[in-house]
């Protein structure tokens, strides 16, 4: 019986403290995936160069792009942390002018829907500008 009592103590302590404090190490309510009901569409952030998906960290010195436009608000996106990371990366790597090696970069959201067992998608652009491929340090 004693093993169960010690385990129950851990269980109730975790439940009580996490529900009371929310996200406070090492307790959490793990609400990040909780509010996903009622969606018929999902949105995934997309960064494209020449129509090809490109990691944002492979680009810097963004020109003509407003980081504030990179926002999941109002869109059925469950990867908000990715959106915030990309927005922060762009905001910290802005440039005033494009160099000769600049490429056109397009940011937007891929809206995915499952219609009658078939996966369909549409692209919603939120920003377009220019950026430069990052060069690795020698």
């Amino acid at each position, binding site marked *: 019986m*004693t*093993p*169960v009592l*010690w*385990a*129950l*103590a*851990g*269980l*109730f*302590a*975790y*439940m009580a403290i*996490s*529900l009371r404090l929310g*996200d406070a*190490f*090492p*307790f*959490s*309510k*793990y*609400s*990040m*995936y*909780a*509010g*996903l*009901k*009622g*969606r*018929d*569409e*999902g*949105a*995934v952030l997309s960064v494209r160069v020449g129509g090809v*998906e490109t990691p944002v960290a492979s680009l810097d010195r963004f020109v003509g792009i407003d980081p504030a436009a990179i926002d999941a608000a109002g869109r*059925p996106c*469950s*990867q*908000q*942390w990715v959106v*915030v*990371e990309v927005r*922060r*990366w762009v905001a910290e790597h802005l440039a005033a002018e494009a160099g000769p090696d600049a490429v056109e970069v397009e940011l937007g959201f*891929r809206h*995915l*829907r*499952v219609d009658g*067992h*078939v*996966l369909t*998608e549409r692209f919603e652009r939120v920003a377009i500008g220019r950026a430069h491929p990052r060069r690795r340090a020698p």
Partner: protein
Amino acid sequence: MRVAPDRLARAGRVAVALGLAMAWLSFGRVLDVDGVPFAPGPLAALPMNPLVASVASFVFASTLSAWASQRREDLTAALLVVLLAAGTQVQAWQWPGDEGANGATMLPGAALTAWWVARRFGGPAAVRDRRAVDAACGMVAGGYFVAAASKVAGSGLAWASAGNIGLQIAAQAAIVGGPLHTLRAAAAESPVFCGLLGVATLVIEGGAVAYVWPPARPWLTVAIVGMHLGIGLLMGLHHYDWMFTTLGLGLASAAEDRR
């Protein structure tokens, strides 16, 4: 062939250590940002750079190695919890608002905290180890149960609907290529498969409350490990910190049952 309790206990200790190591590695993105720009007041001047991260990681690795080897267990466990707490806070201070919450560290940190508390205050030495494992298993039960409860509270049982799960998998299919894309796209287009996945997730996470009962732990450990592997494969969400912590405690509990 029946495995000796000492071997099970060692395997469990190693698995939990792997979980703790992966929780620490989840801080990797801390190096993407200089300093702690969202820390309050004078704390925003604290340095956070590759040098600081390297020193902290060396200390963590050394401490983890000592704990895994059962050297000065109470001290090393406490230090590991402090380091995880500090890393979690640093990461939170690099994000606006509460967007930087890192769930990876929570279950390993909670389990180790409960383990330490039970060893310190759990009575005679002969029963402390048993009680430490049981207290940590209680945290596992609590962590998964709260995760399931949050899903149901936020979305009702509709969280487990085929459409909802299919959308989540489809979003993950969209960002990969090759056979993984093919697998995830096929899964997303099967309402039966997605519905079963959703129900299974809620059943396993909610049913983890039974982890308080030692005879249920082997079965739940297998189910939880399978759930995490499936989530990693289909949804690209890799919570092996939680998985190894649960696996390790399942092994440790089995070792205690056999003593």
